[in-house]
């Protein structure tokens, strides 16, 4: 549950502590999607920053490439869903 409003790409980069180019790279690899709510400029869920930071830690620490880091994040999300009681 998260009540924060969607934010712009620059804010995502700032909160994740990475450069905008890195955020765009993860966007290309499908780690996250723009928020569906229509707006002048694309906006993103505020939780995206934490998602990018996790992928980036995995990429740097384990020597993964972008595709590998995104894949691990998706698998971790699926694992968490399975472990969460319905």
């Amino acid at each position, binding site marked *: *549950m998260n009540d924060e409003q969607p934010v712009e790409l620059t804010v995502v980069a700032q909160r994740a502590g990475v450069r*905008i180019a890195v955020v765009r790279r993860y966007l290309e690899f499908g780690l996250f999607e723009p928020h569906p709510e229509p707006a002048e400029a694309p906006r993103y869920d505020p939780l995206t920053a934490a998602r990018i930071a996790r992928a980036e830690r995995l990429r740097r*620490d384990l020597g993964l490439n972008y595709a590998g880091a995104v894949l691990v994040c998706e698998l971790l999300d699926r694992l968490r869903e399975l472990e969460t009681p319905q």
Partner: protein
Amino acid sequence: MALAYTDYYEVLGVSRDADPDAIRRAYRKLARRYHPDLNSDNEAEDRFKELGEAYEVLSDPDKRERYDRLGANWRQQEQEAPDANFEEFFDRQGFDSDDARVEFSDDLFERLFGGRADGGRGGPLRGLDREALLELSLEDALEGGRRKLTLDHREIDVNFPAGVRDGQLIRLAGQGAPGRDGGPPGDLYLRIALKPHPHFRPRGLDDLDVDLPVAPWEAALGATVPVQTPSGTAQIRVPPGSSSGRRLRLRGRGLPRSGGGSGDLHAIVKITVPTQLSDRERELYEQLAQSSPRETTA
């Protein structure tokens, strides 16, 4: 000052004559096992830091040589001028390392910095998000309030709003693990866990169940009886002929809804028989038994 000695070979589980390939393999294997994003055990993060420190030393021939020779004091002998880092390298090349457009492949980093991806730095990065459990009584959850939590040896003041629910996440920006290399800290997520209540049981998201003890004659004849609600005692009309298990609804007396309004309270009739009867009561029950033939069901 005496320095604590950490055996980096033991940390990585390699012999003292291990070659660089064996050290890299051991680090990668253990890093996957103890990476805090992959392992939620409390000690994983400390272990991962220790691995990074061990690998930083043993993967660098100069540092490894000093470590082998000087043991715990090896850092004191480090030269004044550290190795060129990312920013210094690009300053020399005339690049602006803050340029958001500059992107380099891992291969380029590997060639320039020799295995940067294995525990190397790589610029600021946001710290890990943390999650902690906040156990609340139903009354506290309804009223909102403050709590002091101790996390990573830090005391944190937490304000939680009125009307939080079981399983809800509250985000505390910047209260997670510290960032890396000047990056912002992660966030702390508090997961609300409601303690079991002696009277109220949650039903769905906003509704509550409560037992409604009624006397046999109240159940048979109908009566207005007191019922406990989260906001105090209320009166409820028990219709005549109510058997145990009948559900009586009090609209808007459940839990607050996030969009406004409140859920309902379900009072469940529970016929309660006196454990001790006076002579007069016994006489009346016996009369009742004689005048009321027993209902039989198929």
